[in-house]
């Protein structure tokens, strides 16, 4: 009897401490987000108050400042255009190469796969410098094209690898059936494979959008007044008006919120897409 009580007690302590540890970790990860969201609704003078205010009068002043005085919607538009174009390009080109790597047999197929994976890992700074010079010489600075091409640099390899995985998981019998019935490779690809791999296309699109949306270093160097994207706005608001922390919090939210909402809402599709790619047949 005594032993039972003792081990039950120590088990309770163990459970409690596990719960505490997890709760503390979750608090650590979630607090900055929470703080960020509420701070964006603080008036500038409340944002820099010390001790920091947890209770305050909410105001939309930061948002008004960002949208009307700093023209945040212009940056938002640029981010959308660049992310969309780069994603589209990646999907079109990447699906073709991915399909070839998955299905068509040709020499050097394995090494190509490996090389493409390596591209994904390149340090941005190694590409930014030559890109800057090249775009300068081509007079393409401050254009959407420059940034879209730059983002394709890392979106395309990633997309190729991801899509290759999805194409590999589609049973080849379907393609063979189609081709026996008279379809060319390309027609099979377009009419049969692509619709079947749509979860994979969606997953790739999601990753590409997120990568392009969050990208900073290429954006800050290759863009000018008319094409700057949201991350650049964030850095700018910080540098010039660095005392205006409320506005900074709002910028942060404008950038992060679309991606977060987008990610969380398509999470189901994402996971389904990823696991579909992993399961064969």
């Amino acid at each position: 009897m005594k032993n039972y009580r003792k081990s039950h007690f120590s088990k309770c302590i163990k459970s409690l401490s596990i719960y505490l540890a997890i709760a503390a970790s979750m608090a650590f990860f979630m607090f900055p987000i929470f703080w960020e969201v509420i701070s964006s609704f603080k008036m500038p003078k409340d944002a820099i108050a010390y001790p920091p205010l947890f209770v305050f009068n909410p105001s939309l002043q930061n948002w008004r400042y960002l949208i009307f005085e700093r023209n945040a919607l212009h940056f938002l538009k640029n981010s959308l255009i660049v992310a969309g174009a780069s994603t589209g390009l990646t999907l079109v080109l990447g699906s073709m190469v991915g399909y070839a790597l998955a299905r068509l047999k040709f020499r050097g197929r394995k090494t190509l796969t490996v090389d493409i994976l390596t591209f994904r890992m390149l340090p941005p700074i190694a590409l930014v410098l030559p890109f800057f010079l090249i775009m300068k010489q081509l007079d393409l600075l401050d254009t959407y094209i420059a940034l879209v091409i730059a983002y394709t640099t890392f979106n395309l390899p990633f997309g190729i690898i991801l899509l290759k995985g999805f194409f590999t998981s589609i049973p080849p019998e379907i393609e063979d059936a189609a081709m026996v019935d008279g379809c060319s490779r390309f027609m099979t690809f377009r009419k049969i494979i692509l619709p079947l791999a749509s979860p994979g296309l969606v997953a790739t699109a999601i990753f590409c959008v997120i990568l392009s949306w969050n990208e900073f270093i290429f954006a800050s160097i290759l863009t000018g007044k008319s094409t700057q994207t949201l991350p650049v706005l964030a850095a700018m608001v910080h540098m010039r008006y660095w005392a205006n922390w409320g506005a900074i919090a709002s910028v942060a939210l404008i950038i992060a919120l679309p991606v977060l909402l987008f990610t969380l809402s398509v999470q189901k599709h994402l996971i389904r897409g990823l696991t579909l790619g992993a399961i064969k047949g």
Partner: protein
Amino acid sequence: MNPRMRDSSLILGKAVSMRKNKLTVLLFIGPGLAVLFAVSIFPLVYSLNLSLHRWNIIRPYYGYAFVGFKNFVNLFLDYRFIESLKITLYFTGGAVAIEFIFGLGLALLLSSEEIRKKEIIRIIRSVILIPMMVTPVVVGLIWRYILNEHMGVANYFLSLVGMEGLKWYSSPTSALPTVVLVDVWQWTPFVVIVLLAGIASLPTTLYEVSEIDGASAWQQFVYLTLPLLKPIIIIVLLFRIIDCVRIFDKVYVLTKGGPGTATNVISIYAYRTGIKYGNISYAAALSWILLFVILGLCFLLIKIGRWEI
């Protein structure tokens, strides 16, 4: 190919179908590879060529001369480069180590008997993705706000427990640990999620058998869990190392490489040299060295990936 065409190609021999096959392959991979070549390989080659010359974009009157490997030699004699190597090393080592230990611990806790089957795990798994998804620039800004020495929440919390406020990113000594902290915040969830999946896939039978044989939890961990997770652990570590070596956004927004040169990681140093001071050929050489380091790590990753998986 309709049946009639197939018959005729059989008659014509393999040559026709092979040529058609080659054309198909070209059609599919041609456009994609061409673009990839243009946007990846070409700039890299351009950059390599640049690093063998001398070119300053702020002072173009210095001229554009071929200097061979002089840039690379100068780099290794440059104390600031060596310093930035050291800083990058400290940052990478510290960040990856903490992310791994913290992440492994959290993953183990979440996989423990008490927690494993609860509904809350699903919520936790979704929610813990959030730090990874936030734009690095934004992460830097948020933490810059929180860790501000005058009115940041962090110092407020410290004062509540009776400690003095810290200088976080404003002091040369604490700036690098601060950057490590921010990276830990953003990327530990990655380690947690991957290791969680790995632990979930471990065979339970081994654990049951070892428990019958009298193994303690610690022994189970050291002799069962760790060895079985080794391939996943190595891959996670390599991914994080490669990402940490490349870091730029967070450091730029938090400290811009400062105070002084306290957080002058390689990417920031290359950026400063090339864009701010205009010495773009030197910066190109610098970025190529970084490239080699990362290519080496990638090579390792691929080798190990082929082994274990």
